[in-house]
């Protein structure tokens, strides 16, 4: 029996990525972001999420893409990893996809650049390709 896994998908440029739904807390429209000095360039700043200060990582910068102004479609995906609550700024996010285990392959190790490390597996769904990211690597969190 193959297992069905659920992924929250988001878009950067025209590429689609997926995050294990168990890590996703909620998806927010873009909130005012306050810059924090002396943080890595991909840390966009912090937002007020109903009384809790949550850091926001700009995934465009993290994936080496040109930063763009936030649009109406832009979203902040709030994820929970290793007891940390972190927001990820993405171009858009709309659906949850169910992908069977059989349709998930290890990411091809062709490109040697940074981005490749972030994508662990590739999921296929209705002829679409979803890159399933390794949150720990993307957010550069050390396992505890």
């Amino acid at each position, binding site marked *: 029996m193959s297992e069905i896994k659920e992924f929250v998908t988001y878009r950067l440029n025209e590429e689609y990525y997926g995050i294990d739904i168990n890590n996703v807390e909620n998806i927010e429209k873009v*909130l*005012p972001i*306050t*810059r*924090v*000095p*002396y*943080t890595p360039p991909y*840390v966009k*700043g*912090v*937002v*007020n999420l109903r*009384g*809790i*200060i*949550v*850091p926001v990582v700009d995934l465009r910068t993290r994936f080496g893409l040109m930063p763009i102004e936030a649009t109406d479609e832009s979203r902040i995906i709030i994820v929970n990893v290793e*007891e*940390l*609550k*972190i927001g990820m700024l993405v171009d858009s996010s709309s659906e949850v996809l169910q992908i069977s285990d059989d349709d998930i392959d290890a990411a091809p190790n062709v490109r040697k650049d940074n981005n490749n490390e972030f994508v662990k597996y590739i999921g296929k769904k209705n002829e679409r390709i979803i890159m399933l990211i390794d949150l720990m690597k993307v*957010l550069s*969190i050390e396992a505890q």
Partner: protein
Amino acid sequence: MDMSQYLEIFIDESKEHLQTMNEILLVLENNVEDVSHIGEIFRIAHTLKGMSGTMGFTKLADLTHKMENVLDLVRNGELSITSTIVDVLFECFDALEEYIDNLEKTGNEGDLDSSELVQKLQVIAQKGEVTTSKTAKKAAAAPTPKVETKPEDESVFTLSVNDVGSIINKAIEMGVKPYMIKVILDQGCMLKAARAFIIFNTLERFGEIIKSYPLAEEIEDEKFDDSFEVLYFSKLDEQYCHSELMKISEVKNIIIRELSESDAAVEAVKEDVEVTMAETEVEVKAAKPAKRKEDANAKSNDKGKTSKTVRVEIGRLDNLMNLVSELIIIKTRLEDLDSSSNRNNMNEAIEYLERITTSLHDAVMKVRMVPVERTFNRFPRLVRDLSKELGKNIKLFMSGEETEVDRTVIDEIGDPLIHLIRNSLDHGIESPADRVKSGKDESGFVALRAYPDGNTVVIEVEDDGKGIDPEVIKRKAIDKKLITVDEGEQMSEKEIINLLFAAGFSTAEQVTDISGRGVGLDVVKTKIEAINGTVEVVSNLGQGSKFIIRLPLTLAIIQALMVNLDEEKYAIPLNNIKEITTIDPAKITMVQEQEVVLYRNKTLPIIRMKDVLDFPSTEEVPEELITVIVKKGEIEAGLVVDSLIGQQEIVIKSLGKYLTGIKAIAGATILGNGSVALIVDPNQLF
């Protein structure tokens, strides 16, 4: 059987008992004659034994059992207490504490070996045994004094078995013995419900409880006097049941009657008479443990003799705190609203809201407050042990233990205080010989005082030792290249003494185990500054020294000055700010690559906030610089900002674990419009 859910209660209770034991041991040491103290320790050891036995912690039970033996001999006047015995008791106490610590951390007793201690206790007990071997054995066999006389009324069972007669018969057929058990608890039993639960649990280990009187729910709610009854099926014999139950502490007596088939029949006849009892079907297993836990928790607090405290889960408090901060945010938002048509009403509303938030804030703060006693109560033991080790005679005076500070502060001040006390004992107070030489009393003293002072709490550690010699400090500092000879000449006595707090400074002539590993006072200072406190030292050479710690009452809500840097808003804590002024950029000169300005006849270093906070640099030179002068101890610096917004009450929030150790930033706060502003930590700027 799963006991894990009671582990917490067990640990809490044990800690309380150990704390009392510690206090009594200290009193006992100075007053060995007083037998009433022995009785008290005996009672504690006994309770601990019972509790740990029930929980299945054999090492704990064993050790306390042996302690009990010795204590019983002393209590009965068959053994007189000596300092050796007190020392052994202290060692036992340490071992017990370690077991409990292990339990708390890992859930099991750990592999601390207490067999040596057990042996020591045995030797002591045997010495007493030379004359009184019988009593000792008796004490070992039956730690709880048995109640010999069983008054008539105690043995009467109220529990009716009429409705379960057939079940009883069936049980007998299957070789299971039905018992009527009456449990009589000590009159002074504090946690009857919890105790009853332990009894139920014990029983269920060996059999099944069919019903009880009163109902299980009522027992749970403590709706019974000193006794309750159960109908119990078990394969065990009467004797064993009895002894198992008697092992539980605070059980005064157990009456067991084995039921026969005729009992069941007879009871059945009475059926119509006692219809009311027919609904006593009890499902002990279905009892709600969570509720019980709460009950037990609440009750165990009543046990504390010194103060009645409420244990509140810190998470809940944080939540409450969050709500309050939301309220404050709304208040700020209201204040921000521009003049509406009904300005007066608006003002009234704001005033009202302000009153509410202020009192809510106070109320929450009070819940978070705990007396410093919690930290202080481990010091008598510390001083006792250290002075023994150092061969000095030192008395500890404590006052103001009831002074309250925020819970978060309490947890942080323990280590610094231990450090300061060790320092006083080791470096401060001279050896008895030296003291006599300098005309002082042979025994020294350390005083630990706490008192509230305005919005802060002050804790002082004072000793009457040799004080701090600025010359020695200066020499050491120069030796250790902390300062140059020239610098040393220019420094005031006070500045020199404050070098004590510099990293890598230790003045002990000899490095001892107790203090003087070179990581001394700078750690104290860092720790205390981390919770926004200050520490200073006053010293009179030859007469002693005094360390004064000032702590904020609360950490969560502060007054701050809001400033603008470009479009960004920052908060500067008001307690760091000395004054606000404007400075003519032309008057700034460079000294050793640092901008300074002469202000009120003092050189004031200038720190441009935009440079510090990583802003893109601009060429623009304003006509005058708006400068916030902040102070850190004696040092001042001017922070240049773009413009001032005003004073505001802000709620400090953490940036979280993902963004830690960010230079110059103490945290964040939420503004009236919902956006986030960062809080500048001036202490990290210079």
